């Protein structure tokens, strides 16, 4: 078997493999995104500020705050976008665009907060586990509702997702305001969580000093691996992928594609909601601010998923990468530059991801040229 595969690989060997092709194309995309970001910086701030600021992005502010702290921050900020990225990517594997991730994220965050504060007296040290379970449940229900509306009622996925996001936003505001334990009247933010509701830090505070790094990242990566396993090994994964790749063929095979879409949205909802819990229950003193805007982590999931080609394992790396840029962006504020520039840069990078096929083609042509006559 192995031999046959090797023979099928054309000139260029490992360099021409699909993995390398995608990988190199993504790197090119990222570099172009960063270059345009640099040009923007030069336009807005002039050389003497722009160059060091740009360096901060590239180095992820490690240079400013030190390796350990920088690393820890990167891990900490990667958790929410890792989960929302997985959420969006997983749904896309079934051919569904889950734009409802911000709403599911919020439902998870709320459920984690609720369980963390209300259950702490009874559960003590196990409260954080209950918070995670509560968050997952809330997100699953929220995702399932959206999935059922899309699959059975043929509701437009975008409209449905956006609507569910705003329903979640105001519902959470309402629920929090009505709950004395979570909220004191007149403030704009919630009470913070008790220590028992926080994720274990597993000594990460000693390794990554000066950061809020905690076991959330480990749980997040474990969930990604689980998602990979579901897609790769289970009959459910087989159904999900078949539905995503060719819905008509899935129907022909007797797969109930509506049910599959609904289930996929439910799982996707669980992932996004875990992002909410793991983030909010991750660090001491976190307060959720009530407001009229959806949190950005849900939307950032979209570029994370796209950059990771919707692959659960690749998403780990794309989330870490985007988090790295974001931490760098935070560091840039010390130069008097708004951290929004990082959002602009990631957006441009993602924008160039849509040219990915073009870059892949160019790359393949280059490889063909380089290895010509060597086959």
């Amino acid at each position, binding site marked *: *078997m192995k031999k*046959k*595969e090797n023979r*099928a690989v*054309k000139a260029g060997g490992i360099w021409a493999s699909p993995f390398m092709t995608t990988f190199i194309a993504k790197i090119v995309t990222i570099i172009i995104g960063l270059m345009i970001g640099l040009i923007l910086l030069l336009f807005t701030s002039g050389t003497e500020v722009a160059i060091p600021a740009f360096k901060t992005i590239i180095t992820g502010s490690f240079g400013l705050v030190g390796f350990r702290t920088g690393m820890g921050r990167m891990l900490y900020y990667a958790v929410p976008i890792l989960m929302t990225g997985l959420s969006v990517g997983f749904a896309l594997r079934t051919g569904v665009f889950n734009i409802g991730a911000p709403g599911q994220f919020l439902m998870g965050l709320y459920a984690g907060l609720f369980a963390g504060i209300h259950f702490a007296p009874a559960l003590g040290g196990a409260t954080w586990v209950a918070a995670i379970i509560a968050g997952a449940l809330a997100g699953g229900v929220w995702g399932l509702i959206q999935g059922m509306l899309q699959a059975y009622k043929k509701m437009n996925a975008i409209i449905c997702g956006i609507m569910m996001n705003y329903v979640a936003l105001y519902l959470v505001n309402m629920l929090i305001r009505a709950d004395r334990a979570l909220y004191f009247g007149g403030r704009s933010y919630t009470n913070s969580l008790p220590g028992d509701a926080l994720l274990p830090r597993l000594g990460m505070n000693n390794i990554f000093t000066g950061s809020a790094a905690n076991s959330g990242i480990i749980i997040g990566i474990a969930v990604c691996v689980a998602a990979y396993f579901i897609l790769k*090994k*289970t*009959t*459910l*994964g*087989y*159904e999900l*992928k*078949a539905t995503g*790749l*060719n819905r*008509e*063929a*899935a*129907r*022909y*095979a*007797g*797969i*109930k594609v509506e049910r599959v879409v609904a289930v996929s949205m439910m799982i996707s909802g669980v992932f996004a909601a875990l992002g909410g819990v793991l983030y909010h229950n991750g660090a001491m003193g976190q307060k959720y601010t009530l407001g009229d805007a959806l949190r950005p982590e849900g939307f950032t999931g979209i570029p994370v998923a796209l950059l990771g080609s919707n692959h659960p394992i690749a998403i780990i790396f794309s989330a870490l990468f985007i988090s790295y840029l974001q931490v760098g962006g935070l560091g840039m504020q010390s130069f008097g530059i708004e951290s929004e520039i990082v959002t602009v840069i990631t957006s441009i990078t993602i924008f160039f991801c849509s040219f990915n096929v073009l870059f892949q083609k160019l790359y393949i042509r280059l490889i*063909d040229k380089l290895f010509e006559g060597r086959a």
Partner: protein
Amino acid sequence: MSEYVFEMKNITKKFPGITANDDITLQVRKQDVYALLGENGAGKSTLMNVLFGLYQPESGEILINGEHVKIRNPGDANAYGIGMVHQHFKLVHNFTALQNIVLGVETTKRGMLDLGKAREKLIELTNRYQLKVDLDMPVEDMTVGMQQRVEILKMLYRENDILIFDEPTAVLTPQETEELMKSIEGLVAEGKSIVFISHKLNEIIRIANRCTVLRRGKVVGAVDIEGMTKEQLSEMMVGRKIMLKPEKADVKRGEVLMSVRGLTVGGAKGHENSVKDVSFDLHAGEILCVAGIDGNGQTELVYGLTGLRGVGGGSILFGNDDVSGADIRYRNARHISHIPEDRHKHGLVLDYSIYENMILQTYFEKTVSHNGLIDNRKAFKYAEEMIERYDIRCAQGAGTVTRGMSGGNQQKVIVAREIERHSSVLIAVQPTRGMDVGAIEFIHKQLLRMREEGRGILLISLELEEVMNISDRILVMYEGEFVGELYPDKTNFQELGLYMAGAKRDVFAGGAH
């Protein structure tokens, strides 16, 4: 002036991993009807695409009337008088014939469209070549035969002298085919030269005077058709002797396996029913063929039987089990195998590998999964077995992604999967469409083997030769109803054609006996 109207000399065209055209030479004289014969993937289309300027060959030259030319794009080809009728017509459906024909070369007067001159020229052309076309009829209302004549007119209007026909009869009834043959004779008489791509040997013998046979990208031979037999041509094409008419063992028709009564299936949204109150029985050991021109309700009949579309009424009985309201999986798992009409839409998940496609309906069954986990190794082994047994050609064994495979081998994957599911009834929709004689022979053998095993086969086919060669009984479908029940040994192509065109119909009570 050269002896040849065009020549392709020593054309070599390579694609990664394959040489599609290997040193091919093709020389066509004025007023030739030149057949290009070969199996799928033999390089016919590649060669014609080179002539048409869609591909640039690595080496070789093209001469038109003895002069070297470089054809970089279809525009160049057109300028040299080369025109092509594609297998799938390239017409705008809600445009009239006239609008379609002038599209791209519109005649204008002071910047405004002026079709008067074009109309005059086209009327002259239709008269000269005896091509019956209603210039003001929208294409969507035309028969397939007339659409094809529009394509021919399009080439004539552009004053092309070298006309390429890519499998032109695949979509025609026998009567329409005959008309096309007459048109081609007319074109040749007026000085045109024809290249005719086909793997239907009857037609090549009927119409062509010379033939080049390709096999795996190489020329096997160029011969005069005069004196050649079908058997000789097919042997050249495939490289071995082929049974053109499969041998049918004597099989006694057994009990009724599937009994359909009063089946009605809706059409596309807002349209009237596509299948109207249809009844028939399918017996064990029988190949029952539903013949008809494409679009007379065959597709919907299959959708209704397999569950891809809900039925409007009637029953589908397997013994006492009426599955007319059951879901697809129920029918799949208990009674029906289905080789679908559209292998890309329904038959395969193209981005799945062979082994994943092999378990499309059975992935959850005990044979390949336990507790919700798929045993990929088992599925892989099973697929390797199928690849061996059904001679599926693939680059990387069972792990080959089906998208990259040739159409014939993709179809073999489906055929293997459906036959080996051992259902009592197989519904095979155009199982040999677009396949070459070797593959057709293979698939027919498999169908006949199933028949001998006492299973029932409902064959939906547009290919009359196939209908006549392997079926035991023929039901002709016209406008959603069965209009005739025929037996291949008691009928002929002409009679079948008349039923298919709706010119003849029998009244028979629901079609079931």
